[in-house]
């Protein structure tokens, strides 16, 4: 199976049953993406496939051949932390840190969705062309990422600093 993972072409021979998450963690030594529930309930395994956020635990690797996968290890650019990574440190967007890679990948995908006008459960006017992200929108759109430490206020602050325009 061939993939493009964090910009690097990868070719591996794995069992058909291998999830994208197990491919990353057990075969490619990329341990940033976490196995929380392994059943699509927690979001700790969130990665980007061609820029779209998905749950790598529910994804069979074989289905993602030829796709460009970005994990937390591929978020930084030129050795510089992504602005969202810096914001998570600044705002204490974590305690134990286990959910953080998924939170950050999810937020990057979420921001791209909002930018292209994707509505959410919180969006009042479905006909609106542009989405204004506010804290309520961020909380709704990030509801697929659970933080058992309860660092949500810091997480929302960090995401808001980077992706929510000042009112």
């Amino acid at each position, binding site marked *: 199976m061939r993939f493009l993972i964090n910009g690097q072409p990868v070719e591996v021979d794995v069992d058909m049953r291998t999830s994208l998450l197990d491919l990353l963690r057990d075969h490619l030594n990329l341990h940033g993406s976490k196995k929380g529930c*392994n059943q699509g309930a927690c*979001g700790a395994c969130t990665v980007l496939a061609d820029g779209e956020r*998905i749950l790598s635990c529910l994804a069979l690797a*074989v289905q993602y051949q030829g796709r460009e996968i970005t994990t937390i290890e591929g978020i930084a650019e030129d050795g510089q932390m992504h602005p969202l990574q810096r914001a998570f440190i600044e705002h204490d967007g974590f305690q134990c840190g286990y959910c953080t890679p998924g939170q950050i990948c999810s937020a990057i995908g*979420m921001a791209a969705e909002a930018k292209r006008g994707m509505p959410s*459960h919180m969006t009042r006017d479905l*006909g609106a062309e542009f989405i204004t992200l506010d804290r309520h929108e961020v909380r709704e759109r990030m509801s*697929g990422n659970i933080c058992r430490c309860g660092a949500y206020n810091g997480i929302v602050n960090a995401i808001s600093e980077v992706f929510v325009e000042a009112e």
Partner: protein
Amino acid sequence: MNPFTYARAEQAEDALKLAEAQGARFLGGGTNLVDLMRETIERPQSLVDVTGLSAAIEETSAGGLRIGAAARNSAVAEHRLVRTLYPVLSRALLAGASGQIRNMATLGGNIMQRTRCAYFYDDDGSRCNKRTPGQGCDAAEGFNRYHAILGASPSCVATHASDMCVALAVLDAVIHLRSPRGERTVPFVDFHRLPGETPQVETVLEPGELILTVELPANPIAKRSTYRKVRDRSSYAFALVSVAAALELDGGKVKDVRLALGGVAHKPWRALRAEEALRGREATPENFRAAAGAELIDAKPLRYNAFKIELAARTITAVLQELAEEAQ
């Protein structure tokens, strides 16, 4: 997870051919099937990936909308024509799952998803007629807060978990199917089955038959539609009760109405009795409440879910009232 072979189909003909293999299953986004395979509740010997088939969302010559079965939930929810002509569908999709799952899940897969009944999932410890026909149902006398109040049987009290399907039921959608024997169409409301004595048979789909597209007929009432979901958390939870509705008024009277319920039955529940009770009547909260009562008259509570009857009645009333206020 049991071993399986995998093949990706690029055309419907290829998919049907590949599905002739022993123990074959079609694979969409995998958000339900992969999970069930990991629990060995589903044990396909071969997977036919149909995510490469049509995902197009296009207008029909009759003024409706045709959606390919491979269309992702997020793509349907954000499509301009769905948002403006069929807002109930967009709202239902956005009330379901999470952003990540909506990016993976397909239209066809969402329709085919299986119940989230905990006893169905508990392969080691519980009896389930859906999982092992004839075994018995531990949900009927168990913790059945999430279970059905309408159309259930002694064999099965599970509910259908999809939000999207409740919207498709209210929109009079039609499913286009294809098998080696040819193509056929099925009204969406007839696609899912009530459990009866065979709860393991959940749809009218025949072995090897493939969902190609779902067609939404043109209907002006659909523009004035919405979806409300009542759940234990404000986001990312399955419905206790949900209501999809569309309403058209004429001088304070109900000219036309569409109503469907989620979280209450083995299938998306089209509320035809309530619709019938409302046509031509004054659009008042009292009449909305009475129509809800007409629909729920046969509701049978289990030990832990009697609250759903009152919750459904109040949610129906509130949603119709919201649509009536918007229309006036």
